[in-house]
């Protein structure tokens, strides 16, 4: 493994040009429209310098910090799936030719990207999407092309939001593996520096160019303590013991009716979730009828026609749609892909307009499990 190194703010500022010179487009957090979103960065000054976020169930606000921290916030409404599994992507362009058609597939390949500021829960989310979109029976070539060769600069969280529960899901706040570089920011009166570790040869090569110094033992311990502090700030918990069977056996739990009274089926939770992968396909054609395109777009199991087959929608009630989402995320995902679909980032809690909290819903079911009576729909 590579030894930790120390960077000053000025030395870190060379990271973005160093990535640019290697042909990467650098994307990362930046402030826009009152939120921290992911976009193209020209330098570290594009980061949310001196900003933090306040998050609670159904609430998100930006607030000024009393320092110039670059990473003094947690995760916003967007996730890296914006780049690897985009909200809209063209599957094909076709044109009529005589009695048949030709597929024209000449979309430019996506840019080589460097992700700057990937949190531990987000690294876990990328690993989950890898299993879904390129690790199972079929491989999604669109995802694979965008995913391949990404340079990942991870950031250890040194503070947590009230909505965070990565410690319950075993994903954070410390980043583990699967990065090229990992930063821990140390900021205080008269001090602004970064402990940085390379996780790959490519990372080590970039790091060498930044001319880091060797950190003292005390600085390394300070960085450790900062991550520990984030872990200790985390208040939300989800008990995942036997959670698959818990949800499978509580298909008829009265709590689903309770949550359906609050759920607006707006699909916000699925849009902000870094692992939700469902899509639909839309066909378009021009007025001449000679050109057609097929577009893949994010879809949500909260929409009514998601489950449409001839004769009607399978999941017509809000109850059944919330249950599908949560049961898939926490239970059937394990059967399908060998891990939970939840990484504990808390986005679904923050961005739910009515503040539904997935950890609270699990707790409610766990604390009063349904009787072992057979389903209410009486098939012997």
């Amino acid at each position, binding site marked *: 493994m590579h030894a930790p190194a120390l960077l000053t703010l000025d030395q870190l500022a060379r990271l973005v040009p160093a990535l640019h010179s290697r042909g990467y487009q650098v994307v990362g957090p930046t402030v826009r429209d009152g939120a921290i979103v992911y976009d193209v960065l020209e330098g570290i000054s594009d980061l949310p310098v001196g900003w933090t976020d306040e998050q609670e169930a159904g609430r998100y606000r930006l607030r000024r910090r009393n320092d110039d921290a670059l990473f003094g916030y947690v995760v916003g409404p967007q996730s890296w799936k914006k780049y690897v599994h985009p909200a809209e992507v063209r*599957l*094909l362009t*076709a044109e*009529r030719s005589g*009695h*048949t*058609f*030709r*597929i024209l*597939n000449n979309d430019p*390949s996506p840019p080589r990207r460097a992700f700057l500021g990937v949190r531990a829960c987000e690294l876990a989310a990328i690993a989950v999407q890898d299993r*879904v*979109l390129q690790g*199972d*029976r*079929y*491989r*999604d*070539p*669109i995802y*694979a*092309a965008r995913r*391949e060769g990404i340079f990942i600069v991870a950031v250890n969280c040194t503070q947590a939001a009230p909505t965070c529960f990565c410690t319950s899901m075993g994903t954070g706040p410390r980043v583990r593996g699967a990065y090229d570089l990992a930063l821990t920011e140390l900021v205080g009166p008269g001090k602004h520096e970064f402990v940085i570790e390379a996780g790959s040869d490519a990372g080590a090569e970039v790091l060498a160019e930044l001319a880091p110094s060797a950190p003292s033992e005390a600085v390394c311990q300070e960085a450790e303590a900062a991550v520990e502090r984030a872990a200790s700030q985390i208040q939300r918990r989800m008990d995942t013991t036997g959670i698959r069977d818990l949800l499978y056996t509580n*298909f008829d739990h009265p709590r689903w009716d309770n949550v359906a009274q609050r759920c607006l089926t707006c699909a916000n939770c699925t849009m902000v979730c870094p692992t939700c*992968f*469902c*899509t*639909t*396909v839309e*066909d*378009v*054609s021009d007025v001449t*009828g000679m050109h*057609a395109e*097929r577009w*893949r777009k994010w*879809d949500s*199991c909260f929409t009514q026609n*998601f*489950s*449409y*087959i*001839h*004769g009607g929608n*399978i*999941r*017509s*009630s809000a*109850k*059944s749609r919330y249950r*599908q989402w949560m049961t*898939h995320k926490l239970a*059937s995902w394990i*059967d*399908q892909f060998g891990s939970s679909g939840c990484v504990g980032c808390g986005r679904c809690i923050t961005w739910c307009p009515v503040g539904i909290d997935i950890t609270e819903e699990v707790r409610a079911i766990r604390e009063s499990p349904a009787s072992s009576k057979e*389903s*209410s*729909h009486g*098939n*012997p």
Partner: protein
Amino acid sequence: MTMATATTTDPMLPQPYSVRQVVKETADTFTLTLEPSNGAGGNRFQPGQFSMLWVFGVGELPISISGDPAERNRLAYTVRSVGQATHALVSREVGGAVGVRGPFGTGWPVEKAEGRDVLVVAGGIGLAPLRPVIYEVLHHREKYGRLVVLYGARSPRELLYRKELAAWARQHETQVLSTVDYGGLSWRGQVGVVTTLFKYARLQPERSLAFACGPEIMMRFVARDLETRGLARENIYLSMERNMKCALGFCGHCQYGPHFICKDGPIFRYDQMRPLLEKYEL
């Protein structure tokens, strides 16, 4: 895998096929026979598999293959016109283009049926994905025991493949029975749901394999009744249906409990499906 091969083998890109024949089965149901437009060999399939059929500029649908697996280079699909895309599909003229992806999914386990009696239970257009099984058994008659086809439709006018039903019934060791919900004055056959035919089926339940396809509620009762008549749960297979956009396990639409109907199914063993069939709005 390199980027280049990833593009050329993109499973989301349809291959152009052209319509060779359109047969009107009922007022709203048609069988289309397709051949590859580029003269290349068509894809082989297993009975029970499906394709994604795309109509240029309109939409794409999962449709079971209803043709003969022995006929190379031709794929037949029986489609009921119920919406925009199915209407566009059945309105194709001979020579017209259809995009094909697939075949996808699991097939009926016909090898497991060798040496056994084969019971086919179909409801409505559910006979379409079962027709390849019937062809398979009749092509290799010596490999199988008795073939019993039990078919239920809403009315006599909605029975598919009527001439073939009569022809199959004349085959050696083969029994074909149909029933309808509403008979009308000229109907001389059975009236009632398809399970009412079970008492006429001449086969040995303990050495039979059953393949069923139809509305979910029908399959639930078919499987339950077959079990009471002595078929083991492991010997009953069902073909399930859910919304599908990709057929590759990426779009998420076809999830049924832990299963993706597209890649884990559409054919499932009853003992896998039984706990799920009981769940409303799963």
